[in-house]
């Protein structure tokens, strides 16, 4: 009966909205789906066995993971403090934290070069302890982290905000220290937001192109010098044309699509219980 009702209520409004919405869906989904099915599984498998491609994807995933882990250690405390404390200029600060999402990626690369270059403040400081950033994996991680960590911070902050602060007060009144309260109450209740923020951060990190192109083009990795996957795709396209770039693009899209959708569905599922 419910279905019938929906049809009875169908009208110009619903029709126009459905058409416009479908146009948007077609626009978003067609490029993704068409690319996924444009190469045969055989070609993709052969591409994956290509040493350059294999190493590139491995390094991209690994650097993304590293960036996310550093992001967790530094970003979760920041998110917690933003959720629990009010101070003057907090709104401005929250806007500034989101800025890396919106500044042009190549400009972000240049901005990073300004502080992580050899002669620059951070660069010099880390150079002393033996860490270089230009054309190294550390540079890739830094570039990835800069453009993607706002996703983690925003999601985690909203998560902490949705936990009633009185739950923490109860835990404290029962004799738990601030650390115990955080690990046993605040964090378990925010877990889902932290995980989905991490997924978003990792996905955004492995997709970064512009900042990495400027800060760390080809980097040493297991004796080779691969580029991250987005850069590799661009190189192939630039040097050998669309047909050479296609299988890698397909491979990378399929991998990030599966990882993203699977993880997203997983965390959404938990929401239901």
């Amino acid at each position, binding site marked *: 009966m419910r279905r019938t009702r929906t049809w009875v209520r169908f009208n110009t409004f619903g029709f126009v909205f459905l058409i416009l919405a479908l146009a948007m869906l077609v626009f978003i989904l067609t490029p993704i789906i068409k690319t996924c099915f444009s190469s045969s599984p055989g070609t993709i498998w052969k591409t994956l066995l290509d040493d350059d491609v294999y190493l590139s994807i491995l390094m991209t995933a690994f650097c993304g993971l590293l960036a996310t882990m550093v992001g967790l250690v530094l970003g979760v405390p920041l998110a917690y403090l933003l959720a629990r404390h009010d101070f003057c200029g907090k709104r401005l600060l929250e806007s500034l934290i989101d800025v890396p999402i919106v500044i042009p990626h190549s400009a972000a690369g240049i901005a990073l070069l300004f502080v992580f270059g050899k002669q620059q403040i951070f660069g010099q400081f880390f150079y002393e302890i033996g860490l270089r950033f230009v054309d190294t994996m550390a540079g890739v991680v830094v570039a990835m982290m800069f453009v993607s960590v706002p996703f983690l911070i925003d999601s985690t902050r909203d998560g902490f905000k949705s936990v*009633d602060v*009185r*739950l923490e*007060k*109860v*835990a*404290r*009144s*029962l*004799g*738990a*220290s*601030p650390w*115990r309260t955080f690990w*046993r*109450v605040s964090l*378990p*209740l925010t877990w889902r937001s932290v995980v989905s923020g991490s997924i978003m951060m990792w996905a955004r990190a492995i997709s970064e192109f512009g900042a990495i192109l400027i800060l760390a083009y080809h980097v040493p990795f297991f004796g080779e010098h691969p580029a991250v996957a987005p850069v590799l795709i661009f190189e192939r396209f630039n040097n050998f044309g669309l047909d050479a770039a296609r299988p890698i693009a397909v491979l990378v899209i399929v991998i990030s699509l599966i990882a993203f959708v699977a993880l997203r569905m997983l965390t959404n599922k938990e929401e239901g219980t």
Partner: protein
Amino acid sequence: MRGSISVNHKDITRSVPEKRGISIVYQDQMLFPHLTVKDNIAFGLRAAKCAKQEIGRRITEISELLRIDHLLQRRPTTLSGGEKQKVALARALVTEPAVLLLDEPLSALDPHTRETMQQELAEIHRQLDVTIIHVTHDFEEAVALGDRVAVLNQGEIAQVGTPQDVLRHPASAFVADFALSRNVFTANAEHVSEGYASADIGGLTLMVATDIRGPVHLTVRPEDILLSLEPLHSSARNAFQGTVSEILERGSVLYVTVTVPPDFVCLITSHAREELGLQEGVRVWLHFKATAIHAF
């Protein structure tokens, strides 16, 4: 605002919450939704690094006292309001706090559960040696459960004293308005027959329609008490003679205090006053029905 808070002669104003020895139970319980009932209760003990066996023993003890031992494996979201409140109490009590702070613990419960929980709270207070600060808007609840009552008006304490003090000698008009419209008694309900009990309040034996036995609080609404100059042969099971000790006008009605003893406050109209010729010192009969007494 200035001031300091001391617990057992120790200033805790600037202590961190976990060192204060004060456990809180909120109106909406605030159970940890990600933990089972058992883990909720164990939370404070684990934070105090109790031995595993000790934790098990104390959880068993408190959950038997509060009759929630069958709920230990459940999740807080599956519990009813009254069950949640008991778990919150168990969680707070198991750490043996110096002070238990209850923030309107019963106001979110339905009337029936509220009455049961009032009895449970009284029972807990009798059995455990813990100071309970109970915040409530329900004057009868305060009088029924409290050893000492503080009436707050706009953030200031209007009166502190025993429930009887506050009831019988209100310190201000505010407290009087708050207290005067109630007749509250403490008594021991004894079995008479199925559905009935007799209760002795300071020499006076009341007939009450209730199934509760043992210590109870009884209230009679002032408008349910009938006054007459002669004893009446009626369906009212309770009839006593007393002396009018005070008459207070409140708008078009009057509050008449009759000392039997104890004191009863009755609400009558000014017409009735004229007809009966009521004034201080007059001897009158009080009548109220066994079903008009609320027991809890």
